[in-house]
């Protein structure tokens, strides 16, 4: 079974740049070289490239009130199944996770240019983590590098993907969700709830199989979220998985939504 948490870091590369737009190219070059060295897919390289540019240019534009030169550090790390980029700056405190980056909509005149960069970061990255330390803002961007691994038995290993959209934590569960992984999945989701994820949407598109242990874990998570006045919903439930829900009598116990949008509305409370 593939581990659900990241393995110890295997490879890394770091750069320090000044807070000048012209320096962004150096970050792009670093990522380019790192990506080629480790044979990362075009998708992973592209997405991390966009996210890094958005974060670094935001820092350069907004993090400093003085005209002084500041140092921004970018560290790339490759673990077993994910590419991480940690960006550290000593500018004013800015947590992108609490800033709303609403899904763009409306006619030409209704659109404002602001917020699009952050929307890209949240849409393209599998996870975004932030903390504020003595030396400033620490933002970590995470992009999964592999699809579901195939174990010796020919069945897909369990994978979790995490993303945040408009205050909703979206967790993708793919592969098999059975007794061998149920505890770890439950612990991870519990951890997220504990650190504030009270609106949770599960994306089950990639789920191949779920056993009763998996169902009981989901029920427990649902209960945990509800004790914190939060909401849990599911979407992407395919025919096979739906059949398992029905067989186990679990269908009525969960908010199952037809699409991601319905799911987001359901956990935000804009739908019943």
């Amino acid at each position: 079974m593939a581990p659900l948490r990241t393995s110890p870091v295997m490879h890394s590369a770091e750069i320090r740049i000044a807070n000048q737009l012209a320096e962004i190219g150096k970050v792009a070059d670093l990522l380019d070289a790192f990506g080629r060295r480790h044979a990362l897919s075009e998708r992973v390289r592209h997405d991390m490239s966009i996210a890094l540019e958005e974060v670094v240019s935001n820092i350069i534009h907004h993090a400093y009130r003085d005209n002084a030169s500041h140092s921004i550090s970018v560290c790339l790390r490759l673990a077993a199944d994910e590419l991480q980029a940690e960006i550290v700056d000593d500018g004013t405190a800015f947590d992108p996770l609490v800033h709303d980056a609403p899904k763009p909509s409306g006619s030409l005149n209704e659109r404002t240019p602001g917020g699009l960069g952050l929307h890209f970061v949240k849409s393209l990255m599998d996870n975004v983590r932030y903390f504020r330390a003595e030396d400033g803002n620490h933002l970590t961007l995470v992009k999964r590098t592999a699809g579901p691994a195939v174990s010796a038995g020919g069945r897909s290993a369990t994978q979790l993907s995490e993303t945040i959209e408009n205050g909703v934590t979206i967790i993708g569960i793919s592969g098999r969700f059975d007794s061998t992984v149920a505890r770890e999945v439950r612990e991870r989701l519990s951890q997220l709830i504990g650190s504030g994820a009270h609106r949770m949407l599960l994306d089950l598109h990639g789920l191949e199989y779920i056993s009763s242990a998996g169902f009981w874990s989901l029920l427990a998570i649902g209960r945990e979220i509800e004790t914190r006045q939060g909401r849990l919903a599911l979407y992407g439930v395919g025919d096979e998985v739906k059949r398992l829900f029905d067989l186990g009598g679990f269908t009525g116990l969960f908010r199952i939504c037809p699409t991601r949008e319905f799911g987001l509305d359901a956990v935000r409370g804009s739908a019943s």
Partner: protein
Amino acid sequence: MEITEFKSGTVTAVALKGRVDSSTAGTLKDRLSKLIESGLAQLVIDFRDVAYISSAGFRTLLIVAKQSADAHGRLALCGIAGEVKRLFDIAAFTDLFLILPSREEAIAAIAQAGASGKSGASASGKSRT
């Protein structure tokens, strides 16, 4: 990023090559604004040789689209594919612009819109106030 202009009748096609990002978006905006200001009202922007466009590039497109609309011009985009298309979808920009697969089709659509007096700024007509 390289910017090359091609004329096709009354339509000016602007072909982009390279990255449209925070270091190049300003140059692109200046170039396109100048074209609109000089009265070249029928514009096609060709993204066939662009593999990367960040939010800076999208902001430029928004500014140029509004400028074109204010000048009663017509604007179409073409050659949007791959990762660029994916970002257009994520940014929900596909609804804002008239987008055709090839430069020839984009030029034809703009020229035709001009002939029939219809706005070419958006396929769904949503962009006009």
